[in-house]
Every structure is written in C-alpha cells, then in structure tokens.
C-alpha cells in the first residue's frame, strides 16, 4: 500500500491527544490510598521493602524514586508511577500502529485514544498498581519482535528481549508469556537464533538479578508483606509465589494448562471483557486487522497473534476459567487487570483493521476523509463518563477507613486484620503515615490463621515495652485489658471460637473471654461506640464518585459501624425495629453478624446513614458487572 502524505496538523494533533490523556489520568488519580494491593505496594516502595509475592522489587524501587517528588503525599506520588508508565505504553502502541499502518499518523492516534479511555486500561492507570508497567515491558518486547522482522535477525535484539524478560520478573510474571512468540520468531532465523542463545541466557539472568532486592532487603529485615512471626519465607518461595499454594506460579500454569476443562468459560469471560472495554462491534475491525496483516506480513501476523493468544486465551485459561459473570472479585481482580497487554494488542489489530477498511473506501472521498475523524471522536465521548463514574480523584474512602479504625482504638492497643483492603490500608496509614503508631498491627493471611505478620509492630525493641504479651503469642492478657481489637468476627471454624467471644465495636470487633460478656461489658462497648462516633468519616463513602467494587466493599464495612452505633443507643420512644442476621463474607471469611436495633429519634440519623451508604455503594454499580 502506498504511504499516504502526512498532514501537517497530525503531529500537533497527536501531541494534543497525549496531553488530553495525561491530564485526564492526572485529574482522575486516587488522591492518596487506592484500594486492593496498592496500600501494600506503596508501603513496600516507601520502606524499600518487598510487597506480596512475587515481591515486585522493580515496582518498589521505581516507586521509591517517585516518593522523592516534592509535591502531594507519598501515596499519590507512588500512584503517579503507573500513570507515567501508562502514557509510555500508549506511546509504544502509537509507534507500533504507526509502523503497521505505513507511518500514517492518524491511525496510531485512534489506537491510543481507544485504549487510553478503555475501562480497564483507565482503571489500572489511576489506582497505583503495576499492570501498566508490565504492559509497557510486554509492548517493548512486541516492538522489538517487529523490529527483528523488519530488519532481519540481529543478535542485539535477541539479547535485549532476553534482558527485558529477565527484568520483567521483578514485576508480574505474566510478561514471561512473551517467551513463546519470541521463540517462534527465532525459529525463522534458526541458526542465528541458536547462536545467540548462550548470551541471551546471560542477559536474562542479568535482568533477573533485579530480584536480588528481595534477598538483600530480607537480610536487612526490611518490610516484607508475607513474613509471619518467627518464619521468614525464602527468596525462592516469594519469587515463585509458593505463599499462595495452589496459586503458585509454576503449579498454576502446569495444572490449568494440562486439561481443557474451563476453556469454554475462559473464552466466554475474555470476550465479555472485550465487549465491556471496546464493544463487540470492534471485533469486525479486529478480524479485518488480521486479514490486513496477513497480506502485509505473515511473520508479523503470526508473531502478534501468538502474543495476543498468550495474553488472552492462555492467560484466561489459567486465571479466568470459572463461571464468573456476576462475580465482582474475579471480574475486577483478574479480568480487569491481567488482560491489559491483551487489550493493547487487540487495539493494535483493531486499528490495523480500521486502516485497512479506510484504505478500501479511498474512492469515496467524503468517507475516506471523515471516517478516521469519526473514530477519533468516539473514544473522546467516553472521557467525561469515565471521569465521573470511575475516576478516583475524590476517593478517600480507604484512607479514612484505615485512619478511622486506628482513631477509635485505645492508646497502645493491638489490632488484628485480615484481607488486602483492611491490612494494606492500615499498613499505609500506620507505617508510611505513622498515624497512631502506638497501635500494634497484626495481620493474618487466612481467616482462621493465628500466626501473625508483625510488620506493624516493628521495631520489637520499642514495641515490646508496651506489648510483651504479643511477642509471647498470648492474647488473653490483652483481652482482659480490653486492648485486643480485630476486624475478624469469630465463627465455628476459627481456632479462637472456643476461647473468646466478640462484640462489634465501631469498625472492628472487641474480644472478651468466652462466656464473660455481661451487661457491664455491653454498656462498656455501647459507651465506646457512642463516644468514638466523632472520628468516623461517612462523607467519603457518600461522594467518592468511583465504581470501584473494593471501595464499595470498604464503605459497606463503614455502614456496619453505623449499625453498631445505632444499636448502642436505646431510644426513649421506638418507632420501628431493624433486625439483621447475616454472615459477612470476603475471602474465606464467614463472620456471623447479628444485630437488633430499636429505632427512635435518637438513633434514626445513624440508620439513615447506614441506608445511604449501602445504597451509594451497591455492588451493581460496578461497570464490569452485567
């Protein structure tokens, strides 16, 4: 195909498009502490430590660099990191599409805008996670692959891709999927490829050495998200995610790929994500893109398509092959983040298809000139929608939840948490913000576990003055002093169930010796509930403006605090009763929660707040849920 003359307005127009997207992300970023893993990642960055397996050392170090920026707060600065890398990823998409569409610049802009405003890409850009950096490395490898096809096999490209694959192990292991398409590409240049293997391997290990961060920082007893009391996992256990048992990297790949079971679901779920992000109609252009690349270069097609398959169907088979259409956890924790490289590649094919289509209607001059503009305008329409429905610029919910939990605890008490949102949020607030650092924070990794992570009670030399009991793993004394609080309510499967009882207090539970809850204890907790209501911040669960289901989940916990407060007030004249007998479920938790409230003038306000927060944070509002 002939190269179309480049219009002089295209370059400034491209720059404007990037500026619009950068500002769009910048003003959508979470102001301090995003939900999910972000709290742990920010804490690990600030303390130059190791986040949850596989540790993400590359993220920690780049995040540390961003903490040196002299504006905003540490959480916000680290969140700028994925924002910055997202813009770079878009630039790479721009370059790849430019290469594939005969250097005609309007089509790369279409790709950039479609991807830049797509739900998942936008979502991952603004919540402080590592997926945009992972996508950048994958696209760099794709770009190198195309360069190899363009220029013939040059050893330096083999070395560079091996090095980048090694570096990528300092992030999310999924980037290693690029080994397969690169290997297939190497087969076309078999002899040169085989000759380059020894040095490629060396460069892979040089890149891989980025993981020495985990080993050395572990030696120094720096922050380690998965350290349990008296038990430090080995370097390899962290790296191979052995902590997650069945989710361990190698086992997850080998067991799930050894059968076809769930493959149908994997395809269905992945297509659902494509529809949610780009709409099924774009699949027409995706297919046209395949056809166009088939005609242009079969090697490029094979390389790009195998890359796409690895990050779509193969990855979906490993991580996304259950019945999950209405499961917010799977949709958001897997679908919304793991497939970012697949979405980048999808957009590349799709734009190649648009280019092919537009070139085919060259004779229809009006369409030929206006159709590309039409494809540019379509994604722009989504910007206000994303900003108002998904943007995180006013999402202080997790920060205030974490801060409020700590604020309602007595000085030098002990707090036990379970679950990413609760634990990581409090890590950030206490270890980075040093808010209420008198509280000793213990984390468990399973609901029924009693072996704590004690990163929130370090250094031992100082904390031992206040809580010698904690270091003896003895909580009875603390419970007698009313100093043991937990976000975990007890059920039959919990080992503490036989020894202790709990009463819900504000945002947590307070523990008592079994069978010792008398009217005096109830009055004590009621008094605490009423007295500490001042410190809870309901407003940020009523105006966070995002559809993030993990924010909804945080806010639903906040709403329960208002039930606890309302139940502590006995109205003089009751005009209704509210009863709730349910089980709170998240992860492998199932906490029984029973409450009966007499509603009157005195506690009506809190019941109203409960209802409002529940309504505002209804899970159905999450965009990806059908």
């Amino acid at each position, binding site marked *: 195909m002939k190269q179309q003359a480049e219009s002089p307005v295209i370059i400034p127009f491209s720059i404007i498009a990037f500026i619009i997207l950068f500002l769009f992300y910048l003003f959508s970023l979470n102001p301090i502490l995003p939900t999910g893993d972000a709290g742990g990642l920010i804490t690990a960055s600030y303390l130059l430590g190791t986040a949850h397996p596989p540790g993400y050392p590359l993220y920690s*170090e780049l995040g540390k660099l961003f903490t040196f920026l002299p504006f905003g*707060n540490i959480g916000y*600065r680290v969140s700028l990191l994925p924002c910055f890398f997202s813009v770079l990823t878009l630039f790479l998409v721009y370059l790849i599409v430019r290469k594939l569409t005969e250097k005609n610049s309007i089509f790369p802009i279409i790709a950039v805008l479609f991807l830049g405003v797509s739900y998942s890409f936008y979502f991952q850009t603004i919540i402080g996670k590592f997926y945009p950096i992972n996508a950048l490395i994958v696209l760099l490898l794709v770009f190198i692959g195309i360069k190899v096809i363009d220029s013939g096999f040059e050893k*330096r490209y083999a070395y560079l891709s091996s090095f980048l694959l090694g570096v990528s192990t300092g992030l999310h292991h999924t980037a290693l999927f690029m080994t397969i398409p690169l290997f297939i590409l190497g087969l076309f240049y078999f002899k040169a490829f085989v000759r380059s293997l020894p040095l490629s391997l060396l460069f892979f290990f040089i890149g891989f050495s980025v993981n020495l961060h985990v080993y050395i920082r572990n030696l120094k007893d720096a922050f380690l998200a998965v350290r349990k009391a008296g038990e430090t996992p080995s370097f390899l256990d962290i790296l191979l995610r052995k902590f997650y048992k069945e989710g361990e990297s190698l086992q997850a790949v080998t067991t799930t790929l050894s059968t076809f079971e769930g493959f149908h679901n994997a395809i269905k779920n992945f297509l659902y994500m494509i529809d949610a992000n780009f709409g099924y109609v774009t699949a027409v252009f995706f297919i046209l893109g395949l056809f166009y690349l088939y005609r242009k270069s079969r090697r490029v097609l094979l390389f790009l398509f195998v890359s796409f398959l690895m990050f779509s169907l193969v990855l979906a088979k490993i991580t996304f092959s259950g019945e999950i259409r209405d499961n917010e956890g799977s949709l958001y924790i897997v679908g919304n983040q793991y497939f970012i490289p697949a979405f980048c590649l999808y957009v590349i094919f799709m734009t190649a298809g648009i280019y092919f289509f537009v070139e085919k209607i060259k004779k229809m001059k009006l369409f030929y000139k206006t159709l590309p503009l039409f494809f540019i305008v379509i994604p722009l329409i989504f910007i206000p929608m994303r900003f108002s429905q998904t943007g995180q610029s006013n999402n202080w919910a997790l920060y205030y939840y974490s801060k409020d939990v700590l604020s309602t605890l007595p000085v030098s008490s002990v707090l036990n948490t379970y679950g990413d949102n609760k634990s990581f949020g409090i890590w950030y607030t206490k270890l980075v913000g040093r*808010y209420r650092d008198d509280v000793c924070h213990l984390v468990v990794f399973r609901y029924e576990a009693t072996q704590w992570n004690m990163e929130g009670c370090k250094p031992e030399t100082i904390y031992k003055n206040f809580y010698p009991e904690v270091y003896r793993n003895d909580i009875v004394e603390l419970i*007698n002093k009313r*100093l043991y609080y937990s976000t975990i309510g007890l059920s039959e499967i919990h080992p503490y169930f036989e020894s202790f009882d709990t009463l819900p207090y504000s945002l947590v539970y307070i523990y008592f010796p079994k069978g010792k809850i008398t009217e005096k204890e109830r009055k004590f907790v009621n008094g605490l509930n009423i007295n500490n209501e001042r410190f809870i*911040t309901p407003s940020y669960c009523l105006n966070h403006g995002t559809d993030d289901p993990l924010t909804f989940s945080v806010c639903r916990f906040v709403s329960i605090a208002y039930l606890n407060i309302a139940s502590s007030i006995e109205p003089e004249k009751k005009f209704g009763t509210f009863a709730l007998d349910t089980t709170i479920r998240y992860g492998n938790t199932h906490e029984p929660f029973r409450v009966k409230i007499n509603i009157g003038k005195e506690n009506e306000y809190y019941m109203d707040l409960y209802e409002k927060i529940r309504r505002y944070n209804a899970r159905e509002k999450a965009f990806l849920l059908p």
Partner: protein
Amino acid sequence: MPEKKLSYYLKPILLLLIFAVTALLTRQFFYQLKHMNEADASSGIEKIKAFERVILNHFPLSPYTKNAVDKILIECEGLSKTDEKLYCYETLRSSLIQIKSFYQPYEDTIKKINPKIAELRAESMISWEYNNLTKKDFERIYTAQLALLNYNNAPSQLWSAVTVFSLIGWISTIIFLIMKGFTKNQNRRYIVTGILIYLVFFLLWLCGLYFA
C-alpha cells in the same frame, strides 16, 4: 536515515517535562483550594480533616500548606478533650510525614508536637481503667511513647537514592551496551566500557540495598 543526536530530543523532552510539572502543580493548587474552602465551611473534627487534606495536597512554597498547618495547630490548642486533642495532633503529624520527599517539610512542627502527643498518649493510657496504671507511671510511659514517636522507620534517604538511581543506571547501561556494542560489527569499546559502568552501578545498587 541518519541517527538523530540526543540534543535533537532534548528540547521536546524538556518541554514535556515543564508541561507535566505545570500540570501537576495546577492539580495540587486546585485541590488545596477545594479543601481549604471545605475547611472554612466546617467545624470541629471535620475542619481538622479538611486541613489535613490541604496538607496532603502540598506543593513546595504553597501558602495553603502553611496556612493549614497554622490553623490545625490553633484548632488542636482549642480542643479540651484528650482524645480529640490526640486525634488533632496525630493527624497533623501524620499528614506532615506523608508529604516528606527528599526533605521533611515542617520538621520543626513535628519536633514540637511529638512531646505533646507522647504526653496525651501517656495520659490516655493511664485513664484506661483496665490498664491499672497510675500517675506514677506517667514518666515511664511518656519516655517510651516519645522514643516511638522519634523513631524513624524509613530507610536512609541517601542510600535509597543511591539504590534507585544505580538501578536505573545499570539497567540503562545494559541496554546501551547491547544496542551499541552488539551491532552487526561488534564494537568492543562499547562492550568493555558498558561492562565496567554496569559493574560500578550494580555494586552501588547492592550497597544501596544493604545500607538503606
């Protein structure tokens, strides 16, 4: 096509950098103003939280940050209940710690309020009836709390900077070494220089990780 020199890219990169910094500062200014207005319209604990958000959106030389710090201090002084006073000082201290970059803004304020926080924590511990503590224990608890408040849990700033910059250094060097050294005609000069620079950065990186 002849290879373009670095200076060719320098001007647009510089312009983009200036644009990015301006955009970031505008954002900070916009949000500080927003939260300052919220603070003016609220009272009590909510006012303290609004000032906290002003500080958390800090940018260098911002008049709003100084204003918010001064006003929180006045609010804290004006509170009579121990728990509210503690909340107020802890909020101020935490928000200032969170805006620490390569330097700690308002370090004097933190030093000034740490003893007050230690005092309030000690008082709270004594007043918690289940602790069985008396006023005689005050000094001991106060000293322990002050030690905790003065403890710095962050890694050394200098060694952290050495770590991250040498990481960028050795990664860039390897890329440079591969791209310049392993061309069709291997360039030994680039390879040898690259390996030497890489080793320096890599050793610095290991030292940084260990000593930070």
